């Protein structure tokens, strides 16, 4: 099932700095909720392992993360797909745009996510909220990372 979310963060850092961090595997790994591994396979591709917890549900997704539509330092699209075994699969992407604002950078994002398999079938009550939380957490973590220098 598909979900869409959007939001924005005002970051106290220069656009170039933000852009750099958006492309830094270590930063991304630290920001993706539950990310255990994120290994670069090319400049724009990573293999990833992340564990998602929604209450008592815990699913481990293995998959790929791609960066596309790169437009330094204005933004890109980050997308991923993961196989969660019995839990099903998850796919999603976020369009991230950076603009100068108030001496810092305004990050805006539009996320769409889709899950399939058992989680979609059994988790209607939970997955919308969970997907939103994961997206929120990622950008919140990222903002904190930027703020932390």
């Amino acid at each position: 099932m598909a979900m869409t979310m959007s939001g924005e963060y005002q970051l106290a850092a220069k656009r170039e700095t933000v852009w750099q961090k958006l492309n830094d595997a270590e930063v991304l790994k630290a920001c993706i909720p539950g990310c255990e591994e994120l290994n670069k396979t090319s400049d724009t591709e990573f293999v990833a392992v992340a564990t998602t917890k929604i209450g008592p549900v815990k699913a481990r997704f293995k998959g790929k993360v791609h960066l596309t539509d790169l437009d330094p330092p204005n933004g890109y699209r980050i997308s991923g797909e993961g196989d969660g075994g019995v839990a099903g699969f998850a796919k999603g992407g976020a369009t991230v745009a950076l603009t100068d604002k108030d001496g810092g950078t305004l990050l805006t994002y539009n996320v769409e996510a889709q899950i399939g398999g058992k989680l979609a079938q059994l988790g209607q009550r939970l997955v919308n909220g969970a997907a939103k939380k994961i997206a929120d957490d990622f950008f919140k973590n990222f903002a904190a990372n930027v703020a932390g220098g």
Partner: protein
Amino acid sequence: MYAFTFHQPTTVRQAANLLAKNPEAKLLAGGHSLIPVMKQRLASPSAIVDLSKVEGISGVEMKGRSLVIGAMTRHADVANSVVAKEAMPGLAAVPGSIGDPQVRNMGTIGGSVANNDPNADYPAACLGLGATIVTNKRKIAADDFFTGMFSTALEDGEIIVKIQFPVAKKAAYEKFKHPASGFALVGVFVSKRASDIRVAVTGAGSNGVFRVKSFEEALKKRFAAKSLEGMSIPATGMNSDIHASAEYRAHLVGVMARRAVAKATA
């Protein structure tokens, strides 16, 4: 289910030790959220620590001006507790709306609060009464305890022992049930104490239980359903799914709040 080891400690300390030894362990309280998920193989705890044989963490009693409910007290036992019904009928009525009779015979308040399901009923009662969650390590105010959907202030190895509810003269819970699951599509707990008026909402928010300050302010002027006439909350931040849109949930928050106040003042 995936394989796990099974433990049945008899003290909180033993339970805490088991958690410390098994980082992937899960506490089993009533089991009605955990076991279905394990059956679907959507959870794979390495160990299950069953709290049902732990002594001293169930029962309902008055202590001073608080109603104290042990973490392993079953929903049915709270609903039937004479002490609870006399002290605070509005709270005692909450567990009677959870799940179904068989679920209420197994489910526990501690399990419900620790799980903090965004559609669960007890979190609304805790927040709506300003309860204190007492763990084996510390006391946590409800306002600080519920930190988002399925997330709480509990740390690894921390076990809820009991929950203290300050007695409110006027308190009531109104719930619009999810037609299929029986969870709260929207549930509103309201309370009035000398110092404090609270309106807590479960089921509606995409990030779990929350308070509605605007309603609380309106009720401070006069604690009556009329004070909330025509009020609702914005749909932003409300959960939206095939059963209820954000707008419908926001609308129901207003309706259920008015009905809860009416019930509390009846």
